[in-house]
């Protein structure tokens, strides 16, 4: 495993954590100090996810590892569940999304030029594709949830 790369990733992660807490303070006035332990736990799991991605020879992205670890640790029968949920829930779900999309907006910057080269027809077709995939999936889910008696 590559230690320099891992530390560089951690450095960026520290900023991401800081931005999330600042964002939360701005939006809801939530104290960054109070949410700090939860944020540190999140960062710890996130770094474990990056580590597992390099150690386990599966085509499993770090994002999926992060979800999987946090999922297993917070299943009700796990001894870690109550403590982790209590701390991590102090970090707002929406607060973690804003930094991602700030990075994402900048990162597609050099693709907007390419977008102009795509015919307007493909843009219309894409939007129809998104809409029909979304509602196709919703219809199948609705049907199955009704058959299962879940809804």
């Amino acid at each position, binding site marked *: 495993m590559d230690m320099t790369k891992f530390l560089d990733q951690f450095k960026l992660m520290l900023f991401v954590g800081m931005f999330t807490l600042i964002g939360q303070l701005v939006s809801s006035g939530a104290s960054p100090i109070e949410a700090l332990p939860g944020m540190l736990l999140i960062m710890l799991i996130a770094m474990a996810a990056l580590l597992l991605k390099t150690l386990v020879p599966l085509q499993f992205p770090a994002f999926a590892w992060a979800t999987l670890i946090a999922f297993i640790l917070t299943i009700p029968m796990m001894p870690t569940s109550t403590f982790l949920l209590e701390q991590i829930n102090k970090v707002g779900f929406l607060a973690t999304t*804003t930094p991602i999309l700030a990075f994402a907006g900048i990162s597609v910057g050099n693709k907007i030029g390419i977008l102009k080269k795509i015919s307007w027809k493909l843009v219309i077709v894409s939007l129809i594709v*998104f809409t029909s995939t979304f509602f196709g999936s919703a219809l199948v889910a609705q049907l199955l949830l009704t058959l299962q008696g879940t809804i």
Partner: protein
Amino acid sequence: MTEKEILTWSGRSSKFLKVLGVVLAIVVVSELIGMVKFAVGPGTVVLLPMLYAVIIGMLITPDVLGKKISALKKLIGNDEIEIAGVGVMIALLPLGVRYGTLVGPNIVKVLEAGPALILQELGNLFTPLLALPIALMLGLRREAVGATVSICREPTLGVIGERYGMSSPEGNGVLGTYIVGTVFGTIFFGFLGSLAILTGLHPYALAMACGVGSGSMMTAGAAALAETVPAAMKDTVLAYAATSNMLTGITGIYSVIFLAVPFTNWYYRRLAPRFEAKDLKIAEQEAE
């Protein structure tokens, strides 16, 4: 540059600080504006800080405002855009953890909904069903197969690229939908998520539908949807969306290879002759 090189600070720390400073400024401005909800006809559109963040981020890049304002061009150039790309990957991880903590406590509900969560992927077949005829009507031909075969995230890009080649008409089609999704996906799913409740479909079914595309499409759709459902359903909505997205990551590629590609090609062969006959007629008329 490799990912490791992009991550290297030494000699490049000013570039990192520029990106990080800009991201912090975008976060603060977006959170200051805060969530805005407004009624449009019978529905509610939910605008979340993440939406402003992605729009501001795009606006300040060299292709848009950077072209006109030279100070912006100095702030965000191509190196900074590459760093931001790696930044997305890192910043996604805390969200991944947060999703795990939503699914864990709701494990019983997720298991109960298991079959629906796995099989909703089949809804993908509705994509070419509706989108292919429209693409043909607009005058696209083999590009339409690539563009409408699925929602065209990375796995589809790989499958179509391998089978037809990226520079083939099919490859152009898949790339088109992919790029539009990358640039406008979050914004569009935010609107879909906030207005979808008007269809009368159950919030849980819509939650699963939010998971069909990329991680940020899902986040934008699910977060907006969660604001329009009764408070007691909020966590379950987010948990279902996250699980659906995770399962799509596993099953999606197989459904593209074994179902979507054969089906779209079969459908194309049935539909295309009518349009090609029309093409021929137009060509003949032009020749005269």
